[in-house]
């Protein structure tokens, strides 16, 4: 039997097939978690937001009109929930700490099978600088950059999530990258390789 599409799973879940919705959860929970982690910068909050996203999506299945893809629709719920958490908490996280969950992933990646300690160190610093630079962006630019730059959505998909045209997504990504680049240069990370694209 061929793999069921998101739409078929949604249709089945609408009919009360919770197992079909479970397939949808397993298919997208990693990406939703990564999105929430980058938005919230807190592993526990990201876990809660991920779980809450799917629960709320299930509760709104009857309002999914099929005009967008199911996963962008779920993404939108995740973004809204994460932003609600950010707005509700006090602005007490200005600096990126060593136990930032985003950097934890970088550390794991660089430790595994790397024979270049200097390179690992540089990667960690670069990862930290990227996180710090992204944290300085506005919620709008940061969310758009995470969707496109980190999560790999196309401009059209990000536009569906954010409810704006592709051109606006492109502009936001460009602006976010420009600011991020300035921040990285100030931190001593000069662009290598594909220079001159700015």
């Amino acid at each position, binding site marked *: 039997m061929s*793999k069921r*599409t*998101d*739409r*078929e799973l949604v249709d089945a879940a609408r009919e009360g097939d919770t197992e079909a919705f*479970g397939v949808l*959860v*397993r298919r997208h*929970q*990693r990406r939703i*978690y*990564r999105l929430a*982690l*980058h938005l919230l910068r807190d592993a526990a909050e990201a*876990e809660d937001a991920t779980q809450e996203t799917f629960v*709320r999506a299930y*509760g*709104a299945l*009857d*309002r999914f009109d099929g005009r967008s*893809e199911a996963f962008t629709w779920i993404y*939108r719920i995740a973004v*809204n*929930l994460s*932003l609600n958490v950010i707005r509700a908490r006090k602005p007490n996280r200005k600096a990126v700490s060593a136990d930032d*969950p*985003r950097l934890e992933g970088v550390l794991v990646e660089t430790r595994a099978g790397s024979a270049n300690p200097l390179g690992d160190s*540089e990667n960690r610093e*670069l990862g930290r600088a990227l996180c710090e630079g992204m944290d300085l962006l506005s*919620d*709008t*630019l940061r*969310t758009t950059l995470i969707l*496109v730059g*980190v999560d*790999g959505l196309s*401009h*059209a998909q990000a536009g569906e999530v*954010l*409810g*704006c*045209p*592709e*051109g*606006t997504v*492109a*502009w936001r*990504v*460009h602006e*976010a*990258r420009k600011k*991020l*680049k300035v921040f*990285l240069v100030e931190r001593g*990370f000069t*662009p290598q*390789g*594909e*220079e001159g694209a*700015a």
Partner: protein
Amino acid sequence: MNDRRSSSDLGSSAEATLGTFPFPDRDWENDARAIEARITSGLPGSTDALLLAAPLPGEADEPSALSATATPLTNSGVRTQSLAELARRSVEKKQAQERQMARESLALAAQQRARTTQSGEQSALTRSNGTVTNGAAASTARVNHVASSSIAQDRAAHSKAKSFPKVALALPALALAAAAVFWFRHPEPAPLLSNEVAPAAPSAIAASPRAADAIAHEQPTARDDLPRGVDPSSLPEQASPPQDPSSPSAASGAVAASAPGKVAAVKPALKAAAASAETKGGDQGMPPDPALRPADSRGGELPMKPTTGAVQAALGSVMSGARHCVAGDDAASSAVVVFGSDGRVQHVTVSGAAAGKSSAACIEAQLSRARVQPFAAASFSVNATVRPE
């Protein structure tokens, strides 16, 4: 990803880190079970509608033109609605303003021409019938003399009339009186004037020096557009009020007092004059180059059908979404996309693996978002293959 290359490049290392930002592994199965446990007790329809709304406001300095544009960029970062289109809109707006100004100045010139035409027709009509009083005969003789001269001579006569205002004022009055006498004797005069008497404007110039100045400066050849025909039924009303013809307001009053038939006779000539002036263009604020007149020439610029590149770009921008619809399918599906002349998709017909399934509607919805530039043909169809991801 191409999306990332469309913007400022952060450098290969930063790009690699950003694009493959890892995240700590978790017990995903456990998480999924926890979610499943919650949804079994969840209530469908309980989700707040705000969670389904667009999440973020626009940036303060976000270009509104981009927000209003449907699909300026494709997934590959190539602009499908170019900046040239934005620039053309700006030029069109400016040209519309210039056209409006030109129309207003044309309307003003037409009003002035109507005054001169009216006076000229009156004196010429008097001359063509030949039965006038001695005083009227003398005046028409002068008019004939001036009418047969060139435009330069008209101007000379005009300057002469300026230097002898009393004579200049008396001539049209006499002409009007002669026309009135003639009308009462011959209620059905010849309806048409011959072409050779059409440039009878000198008396009108004498009657309205300001209007004559305007014509001399704005439309040196406008008298070619003067109406050739006159409705004689309007003459009694024109001749009856013995107004002072030296006053411009009196001249315009004569126009206003003329019968509807007279107005009807002048109207086509005004339209012709306006059309002629728009065609000539140069001194009316219109761009001399026809290519710069979008209202007139835009239709001619439309291609018969969209270019292959435009169609590919349009379909490419929505193909990603269409592929999601058939994710998990084994075979590819085909779709016939029909674009209307306005560049929008008229309908999509799906065949192949997705036909008859719910994913067909999904494909139709996705491909219907494609847009191309408007074209001249009634429709244009293209086949597209939607392969599973």
